């Protein structure tokens, strides 16, 4: 026990681990908030689309950085990712608003265009695909203090919009037509969701990597909605799950040299499987309630079978 506590103390006293843990806490809380809205609008894959576009942004930032002769050509990678992700997210939103059928194809185009563009641009910039790997699979161990400030700042924006405008974002995500018929600024709210989702992707990029970002947004929500009936509780529980798997996953990799992103996502998916399997045992489906709606019979039966007692 004492060794465990001293090990824990050792972990918490490492500056690198402190920075990583703060980043993990912010991402663990913020990603499921936006994920809840995306799941509600049945846009679970939007985060993936944005993530792929952000890769092109990373390479573009790199290209601009090396063209400007910056000593560290990686400096502009994150700003590049932010800009590309926001543009990509707004573009998807515009396509979705115009015609519903092509939204699926638009996402597919973003997936392939984003990855291919990133790989091509990084080559032009004189880098290799290995430079992209840190972004694809996360590199929480390279989080610097200035990265941390950016993460905290964006985290505050995401949580501020996601929680502060919860009622309005719920209304527009739940029934867009009714929101329109209520005179709500539907387009502005939709763009807000898209932009903040893009920010979430870029913030989470460092922790879990672009390829796994969406998992952190969606899987905690998927777990939460197995056991809840209300939107508010789903979001709250998803945030708790996100926080728990991020901190736990990161801590595991302090002792076991593994990819933090992959560990976190495997934990989250494992939790989903466990909850899905255990749910019928813990919370049996209420079999007592008659599944038929309360309706008067259209026909009158004077004799024959008794009415169902349940």
């Amino acid at each position, binding site marked *: 026990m004492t060794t465990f506590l001293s090990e824990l103390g050792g972990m918490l006293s490492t500056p690198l681990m402190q920075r990583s843990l703060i980043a993990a806490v912010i991402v663990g809380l913020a990603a499921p908030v936006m994920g*809840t809205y995306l*799941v*509600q*609008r*049945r846009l*679970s894959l939007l985060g993936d689309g944005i993530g792929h576009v952000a890769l092109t942004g990373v390479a573009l930032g790199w290209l601009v950085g090396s063209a400007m002769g910056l000593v560290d050509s990686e400096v502009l990678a994150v700003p590049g990712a932010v800009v590309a992700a926001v543009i990509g997210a707004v573009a998807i939103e515009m396509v979705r608003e115009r015609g519903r059928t092509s939204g699926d194809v638009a996402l597919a185009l973003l997936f392939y265009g984003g990855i291919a563009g990133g790989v091509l641009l990084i080559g032009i910039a004189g880098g290799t695909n290995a430079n992209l790997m840190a972004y694809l699979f996360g590199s929480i161990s390279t989080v610097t203090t200035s990265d941390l400030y950016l993460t905290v700042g964006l985290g505050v924006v995401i949580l501020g919009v996601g929680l502060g*405008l919860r*009622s*309005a974002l*719920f*209304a527009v*995500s*739940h*029934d867009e*037509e*009714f*929101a*329109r*018929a*209520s*005179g*709500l*600024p539907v387009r502005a709210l939709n763009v807000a969701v898209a932009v903040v989702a893009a920010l979430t992707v870029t913030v989470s990029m460092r922790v879990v990597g672009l390829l796994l970002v969406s998992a952190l947004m969606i899987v905690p*929500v998927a777990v939460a*909605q197995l056991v*809840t*009936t*209300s*939107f*508010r509780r*789903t979001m709250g529980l998803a945030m708790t799950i996100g926080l728990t798997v991020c901190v736990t996953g990161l801590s595991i990799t302090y002792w076991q040299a593994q990819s933090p992103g992959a560990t976190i996502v495997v934990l989250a998916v494992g939790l989903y499987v466990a909850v899905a399997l255990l749910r019928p045992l813990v919370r049996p489906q209420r079999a007592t309630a008659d599944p*038929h*709606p*309360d*309706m*008067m019979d*259209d026909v009158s039966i004077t004799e024959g079978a008794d009415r169902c007692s349940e």
Partner: protein
Amino acid sequence: MTTDTTRTAVPAVEARGLHVRIGASHILRGIDLTVDDGEVVALLGANGSGKSTLVRSLVGILPASQGTVSLFGASLGRQVPWSRIGYVPQRVSAGTGVPSTAAEVVASGLLHGRRLRLPRDARERTLAALEQVGLADRAQHGVSELSGGQQQRVLIARALVREPDLLVLDEPVAGVDHPSQTAFAETLAGLVRQGTTLLVVLHELGSLAPLVTRSVVLRHGRKVHDGPAPLPTAEHAGDSHVHVHPHEGDDEPTVSLIQDGGFGS
């Protein structure tokens, strides 16, 4: 609920030369419609005649390709006093990807125009609206656990929660059994007594007939009747005619399909 002191000569709804095109289809072809304060107007017509499209464009869901729409004297947009308008869509599933309770769905009706956050008394008003539709005991139930008819009542409560002066309902009783229709008609009668203006899309007047002050009939996207309730066609009249409406979907009974030769919706 606005009292009589605020009543003005401004009509609740005013549409002038309204045309709506969706893609290549020319759905509405020049509709003029006025609904005055305190009226109860039934919008009738066969499937595909453009009833739903009309109310959807009146409340700003569908853009007009031509013509103008004003609500309470303000042309569609930010200036409209959205708090005075309640809209009940044709039955859709009230559930979505993420679970939500009946109370949460109803509370979303408290947001309108530039009000993006719930008022302080949201909880009481939400429960009162659910009480009005007889679902107060289901407030904390997930909407996807409710029956189709109950989900429809949740959507009605969502429109009532902001205590609108104008209620626009798109086939509120389609597929609802007769006793529920009667109960619903009583709820509406109470609102009408308090001065609420109603615009209701209906297949047949049914249990709402005593309330209706004027009927507007659409056919092929044009207004073909505006005045007292028209008599039902022979096949539809009388007690012997059994109205069977499917629980979901919008297929009409075969009789009226043949009759109207409708062009589909």
